[in-house]
């Protein structure tokens, strides 16, 4: 590294969900300090659900995070259903997958357009872009509204969904609503996605490659979001029940969020981990978008997570059309999903779900009258904290050698953090069994 001094201290990085600090000190070309700090207050969810009954758990744990509340709800319900031996109908499964796609779309559109693109266009937020890039901002708002309306349709509400419950839903959409939704997907979202692809092609990501271990869910028969095995790009698959062997949470003094590592000194989860591990299972249109944007099954530039998120948007839209066709063909029978009878029993259930930022684990142990006696939630952002800090260590010398000054180094480190789309509110829930 060049013989320079740097003293970077970003208190509360902006345009991320939750609070994080960046601390980098370089003295005479030597990296002295390099930290990604999580000062957000802990929230103790795993303690708070103890003694609560099975119907209430997902409504409490969804409040870990507003942005991925559908993901928390899904993981929570699946964990409870496994613990109580509850089978769900095929119709419920398809509706749950559509709801989860709605959230992935909502979160990815918000991140790509509102949190990441302003950096690539040299703006401090989307607000000045409303004047300089009016059409693009209007399109972004339309895409976000589409995704939110999708969550409203399949979950009753986009932030903290209302209708998903243990065993099914409290209400389900009608076939007419599904037909209308399919039409809107084709006529509104698909053209907007094509226009976004054209825009992203003009916005190259900063160059920075670092090998790491990618961990995601995997299924042989579909691009896994709702369930699957845990897959490491280094060591292969394990059942979701064995998540503790892959997540290995540990506490570091400068963070309220726990750190993780597995086969190497750090690991990455999220859209890029998923596209790397499951590239062949992407939908045809998503693969085309990946090819146009230079995303391959072996992409190791963390900034490309932004591109991977967009490619997943295309996948989710195309896969939604497939799911909608299945439901429209069989018709909707509310009796197959609405308020199924549940008998509580003692047991443990572990569920891993791919949420926008990576693998989310909910793990509950219930007593025989259906009260939680122990809970553990492992949050994707936690799994990336360590990788972000290791990226800093490799990226700071590269930036210095490229001749970047202190302000530019700081800006690129903030962009790097943002490309992971960290969700720090989530990450400070924390628990051990």
């Amino acid at each position, binding site marked *: 590294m060049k013989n320079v001094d740097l003293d970077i201290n970003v208190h509360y990085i902006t345009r991320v969900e939750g609070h994080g600090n960046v601390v980098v000190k370089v003295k005479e070309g030597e990296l002295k300090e390099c930290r990604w700090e999580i000062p957000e207050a802990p929230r103790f969810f795993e303690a708070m659900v103890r003694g609560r*009954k099975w119907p*209430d758990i997902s409504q409490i744990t969804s409040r870990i995070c507003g942005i991925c509340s559908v993901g928390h709800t899904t993981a929570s319900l699946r964990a409870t259903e496994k613990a109580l031996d509850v089978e769900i109908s095929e119709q419920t499964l398809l509706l749950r997958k559509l709801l989860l796609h709605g959230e992935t779309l909502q979160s990815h559109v918000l991140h790509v357009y509102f949190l990441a693109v302003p950096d690539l266009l040299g703006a401090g937020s989307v607000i000045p872009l409303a004047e300089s890039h009016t059409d693009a901002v209007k399109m972004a708002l339309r895409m*976000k509204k589409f995704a939110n309306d999708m969550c409203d349709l399949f979950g009753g509400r986009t932030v903290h969904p209302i209708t998903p419950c243990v065993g099914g839903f409290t209400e389900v959409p009608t076939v007419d609503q599904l037909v209308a939704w399919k039409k809107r997907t084709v006529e509104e979202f698909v053209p907007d996605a094509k226009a976004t692809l054209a825009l992203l092609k003009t916005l190259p990501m900063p160059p920075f490659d670092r090998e790491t271990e990618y961990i995601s869910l995997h299924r042989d028969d579909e691009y896994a979001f709702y369930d699957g095995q845990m897959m490491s790009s280094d060591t292969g698959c394990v059942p979701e029940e064995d998540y503790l062997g892959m997540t290995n949470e540990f506490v570091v003094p400068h963070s309220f969020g726990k750190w993780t590592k597995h086969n190497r000194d750090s690991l990455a989860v999220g859209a890029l981990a998923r596209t790397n591990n499951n590239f062949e299972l992407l939908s045809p249109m998503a693969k085309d978008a990946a090819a146009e944007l230079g995303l391959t099954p072996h992409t190791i530039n963390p900034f490309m997570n932004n591109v991977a998120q967009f490619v997943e948007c295309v996948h989710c839209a195309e896969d939604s059309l497939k799911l909608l066709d299945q439901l429209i063909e069989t018709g909707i029978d509310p009796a197959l999903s609405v308020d199924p009878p549940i008998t509580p029993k003692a047991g443990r259930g572990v569920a891993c779900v791919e949420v926008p930022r990576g693998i989310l684990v909910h793990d509950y142990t219930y007593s025989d009258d259906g009260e939680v006696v122990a809970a553990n939630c492992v949050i994707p952002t936690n799994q990336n904290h360590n990788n972000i800090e290791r990226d800093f260590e490799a990226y700071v010398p590269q930036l210095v050698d490229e001749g970047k000054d202190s302000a530019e180094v700081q800006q690129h480190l903030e962009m790097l953090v943002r490309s992971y789309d960290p969700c720090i509110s989530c990450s400070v829930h924390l628990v051990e069994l």
Partner: protein
Amino acid sequence: MKPKIAFFDFSCCEGCQLQVLNLEEEILDLLGQVEIVQFREAMTEKGEDYQIAFIEGSIQREAGIERVKKIREKADVLVALGACACIAGVNGIRNTMDFKDVGETVYGADMKYFPDVLPKALAIDQVVKVDYYIPGCPINKYEFVSTVKALLSGVEPKLPDYPVCVECKLKGNVCLFDKGKFCMGPIIRAGCDAWCPTHNEGCAGCRGYVPDPNINSAKDVLERYGLTVEDIKKEFTHYLAAQETSS
């Protein structure tokens, strides 16, 4: 000159700020009326000169007490945004539990790294004066718009002083008790347009008590429809624990 507004978040899920960002159809108009000087979830700029402060989240750390006091000093008007800010929300569940046990359950011996966590989660008005409230978990985004409109036009923002049942009846919903479900609607402040009951899910109380709630009567109803005393206690400590325990 456009009034300057700022958003601040404390301990929460940030879903209420997200509800503001979810005003896709209104947000550009809103930006024409106000100048947003701080909104960490959405923008880099950090202005320290503002008239209206929206505060999301509960206070859970000593450091948060100092921070919210500084915001109170600078703001002419302070608005609590969402259940965590208004009534401590789900964060307050831990207020009914032994703090040492809660800390050890989550962090074990590592709890020593977090010495300034408060033994109870606090609503904003348990630390500083709050001028107006936008309740809910999450907030009703249209209630946010109407509050901003009222503040800009010099009108006092007002919350409904009647229970969720009124809105639920107006929508023509069948009462959830008649469907064998449980609902806190009779004693919870309206303004959500009976969001959950309309989707066939009982109200959990996220907007806090209606003024002068008849709590004993509500408990009697829940008991009559089959809840045990233990279950009833849980209903009253889902969102309302800090309201119950703060006296």
